[in-house]
């Protein structure tokens, strides 16, 4: 009786009526659990000496596909904590309005200074609310919501296989395509 199959719709809907609901209540009641890799907003962090970790190298500015990061380097100075010479960042602006959350800036950071947060930036009433200035970014560090990913960890994860150790110094070095370095130099 094929026309009886048309009543399956009613049965399916009745079945779903007694399933637990699948949506969360509105945000002021409960927050969604994010996985440890979930990335949403940004923070600049301090390094282990308590100094601002950003050295103003502009790597993130160069790799950003949507060109939203502006870094004003502060020049090399002697660190008051360690006494070594290092770079400083005078200003750092990240325009979250156009960010595509690609995590490339985190990956290229040599000092693990810029990290991504597990929580999203609060929506605002005008565009300037979503422009993360340096103060806001360091404020975000205190949220204690940085994700798992840092530049070092991401690079470790993507490390290619170590080249096979050469057993004998053979005279003919076979050119190994693609396995060799293609990155690292500009």
């Amino acid at each position, binding site marked *: 009786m094929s026309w009886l199959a048309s009543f399956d*719709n*009613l049965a*399916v*809907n*009745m079945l*779903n*009526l007694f*399933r*637990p*609901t*699948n*949506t969360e*209540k*509105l945000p002021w009641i409960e927050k969604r659990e994010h996985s440890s890799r979930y990335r949403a907003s940004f923070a600049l962090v301090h390094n282990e000496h308590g100094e601002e970790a950003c050295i103003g190298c502009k790597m993130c500015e160069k790799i950003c596909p949507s060109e939203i990061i502006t870094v004003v380097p502060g020049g090399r100075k002697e660190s008051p904590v360690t006494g070594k010479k290092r770079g400083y960042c005078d200003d750092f602006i990240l325009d979250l309005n156009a960010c595509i959350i690609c995590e490339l800036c985190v990956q290229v950071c040599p000092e693990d200074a810029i990290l991504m947060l597990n929580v999203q930036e609060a929506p605002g009433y005008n565009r300037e609310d979503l422009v993360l200035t340096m103060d806001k970014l360091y404020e975000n560090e205190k949220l204690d919501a940085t994700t798992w990913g840092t530049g070092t960890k991401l690079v470790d994860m993507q490390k290619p296989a170590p080249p096979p150790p050469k057993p004998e110094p053979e005279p003919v070095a076979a050119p190994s395509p693609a396995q060799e370095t293609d990155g690292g130099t500009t």
Partner: protein
Amino acid sequence: MSFENPWVHGLVLGLIIANVSLGVTGYSIWFERKFAGRMQSRPGPTVVGPWGLLQPIADVLKLMQKEDIIPASADKGLYNLAPPLTVFFVLSTLAVIPVAPGWIVADLHIGILFALALGSLGVFPVWMAGWASNNKYALLGGMRSAAQSISYEIPLLLSATVPIILADSFRISDIVEAQLGGHWFAFWPPGPGMAAFVLFFLCSLAESNRIPFDIPEAESELVSGVSTEYSGMKFGLFQLAEYLHTFIISLTAAALFFGGWDGPGDNDGFVWMAIKTLTIFVGIFWIRWSYMRYRSDQLMAICWKFFLPLGLALVMFSALWVHWA
């Protein structure tokens, strides 16, 4: 001026019935949203009031605050007249439907004809809205609505003829009284009675533009059909008329086929009418959130090729049943 005066009686009872119906309709929207939400694995309204119970009030307040847009090229008179007219025709139907013994505004001796006639008049404001909006989608929706309502009028009337023949009266209270004691026309005569109810139910769904026959609205094809250009409370009136119509279908079906206020044993009363009505009402929502819609030509084909012969056969059968039994 006593309550025995038909004018006072009618006015008081009419006010009560109309307002209760409007309240039930308003809260049916809350119920539908909750019900549909749970069927779709989401909680439905939860925020406004406990369990979202104040949601209909919030909805109406929102609709009232909205800007009332009248398109520059619309026919303003007809455009503004159509939404209140839809509600007027639907609400008038309530006058002839008894909800309990004696609880009827106007116990017309042609009550069922009056109800069906007003139901079919409802196509005029819809077509009026479609034409006056000066919108192509609204025009198509109005055309579809006119074609659909006129076609489904016939099987609807035929299916309503079955209880008329069985009860030998056009008066709805007589039809209900003929069913007292458990002789509900949906189950007696067995089989054809139920078929007549299903036919009545489906044709009424088509009359009130509910899924799976909601092609005049068809928001996936004609953006919102006749109500495309309407905003604010005018749009709200269309919605109100639709839900009210659904409620009246349930009320009429309960009176015609399920014995109205007839309860088990001698427990007759308003409560049983309410239970039966609300059961059919929930059934309509259940169907609405489970099915997709037919195409307009398929809709017509179903009406003329299937419902109309079935209705004629049912009328014949009930006549023979009365004659022989």
